[in-house]
């Protein structure tokens, strides 16, 4: 993954390759702890059930991490993330799969900044609706 997209490579309407994220306990709990989020609902299924959920569910920092990763997987190491906006819906509970899709919704040639709309969908509906802004190299 050393290849990086440059600004001229990208057009509004381009779609990112879809990504399926299996929501294993390792992903949910590992993501929570890697973000130092020890809130019990993200690692303790009894605490999650007391909150009305079937099992532990993803914390928002992990969602943010996946959104960032999804965009840079596509855009490459020279893409610089400048902003992220996320609206959370259906929780990502262990046992489900988050299906990520994305498309380019704006591109500003002066700054080289593009905006990618990303949706992460699970069995309940949309887990996350987000926008990620990245600056791409200007190219040749």
């Amino acid at each position: 993954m050393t290849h990086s997209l440059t600004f001229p490579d990208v057009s509004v309407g381009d779609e990112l390759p879809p990504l399926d994220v299996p929501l294993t306990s390792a992903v949910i709990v590992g993501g929570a702890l890697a973000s130092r989020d020890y809130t019990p609902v993200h690692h303790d299924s009894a605490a999650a059930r007391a909150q009305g959920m079937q099992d532990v569910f993803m914390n928002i920092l992990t969602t943010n991490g996946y959104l960032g990763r999804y965009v840079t997987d596509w855009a490459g190491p020279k893409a610089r993330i400048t902003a992220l906006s996320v609206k959370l819906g259906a929780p990502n509970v262990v046992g489900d799969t988050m299906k990520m899709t994305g498309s380019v919704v704006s591109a500003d040639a002066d700054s080289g900044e593009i905006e990618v709309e990303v949706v992460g969908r699970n069995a309940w509906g949309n887990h996350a609706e987000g926008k990620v802004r990245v600056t791409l190299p200007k190219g040749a």
Partner: protein
Amino acid sequence: MPLSQAQKRELEAKMQEFVGLPISEPKPGRDAVNEPMIRQWCDAMADENPIYWDAAAAKEAGYDGVVAPPTMLQAWTMQGFEMAEGYDVPKNNEHRLHKLLTDHGYTSVVATNTDQGYTRYLAPGDVVTANTVIESISEEKATALGIGYFINTRTTFTDQDGDEVGWLTFRVLKFVPQQQPQAADDGGAGAAAAPGIIRPPMGHDNGWWWELVQDGVLAIQRCNGCGALHHPPRPMCNQCRSMDMGHVEASGRGTVHSFTVIRHPQFPGYDMPILAALIDLEEGTRIVSNVVDCRPEDVHIGMKVTCRIDEVEDGFKLPVFVPAG
């Protein structure tokens, strides 16, 4: 036990005292930005971007060496292990605010929104300090998870030189959890059961009305004192103050008084979009319901509709309205 209106006003006044306060003294993250935490994060996110792993690749991309994923910003100042202890003994203003709500029955919390800006990528050795202010608190809202309050905070992150490295706004819902349906019998080894619709509250004053719906009857409450019709059901007649209430069976014929097409938010468990309508029943009362078997572009004010009682989930019926044929 639901709060009375007076208790709720008192709670809301106490909550508002937190607006504008910093959650605590600005506190640097426990550890400076470091490679082991970066790698642990990238493992969990399966993020193979080489600028987080390999100094040479990072240099090729224009950095001095390995950098941290920008979405990790918040992680550098998280409280970590002590978060598992909860806030029975509150340590800061945010805990005090959350505990206030927990003590009033709003026991659960979920993050719902965040907006973040990254001024620069952080590198090992950076010391990040978070400065967080409680920015606003919403009115009480009904949500798919339960009723609750949205709490908005704003955080500015600075480095060891006091320069801003990023910012974020964060919104959480502090809510009264409602019981989710149990997962279906071993349907897919712990797979999350699809959520159902939000059941209406069936209390002392309206439980009988819903029971009649379950028997296939659309009822209208009728005052036994003066004969006035009421919907939704209430304990006392607003015409003659009688508390002696009966009901009549509605014909089910009605007219769309007004409507809205709900496309967002997309609640789990609902088929979107939802045609929500205010229906004038021919008996003279008005009811909020859904128009079904009708395209959003076909519903209109003045449209004639007929009630149908649908079993929307196993063992639960709802009155809906269909275009009169």
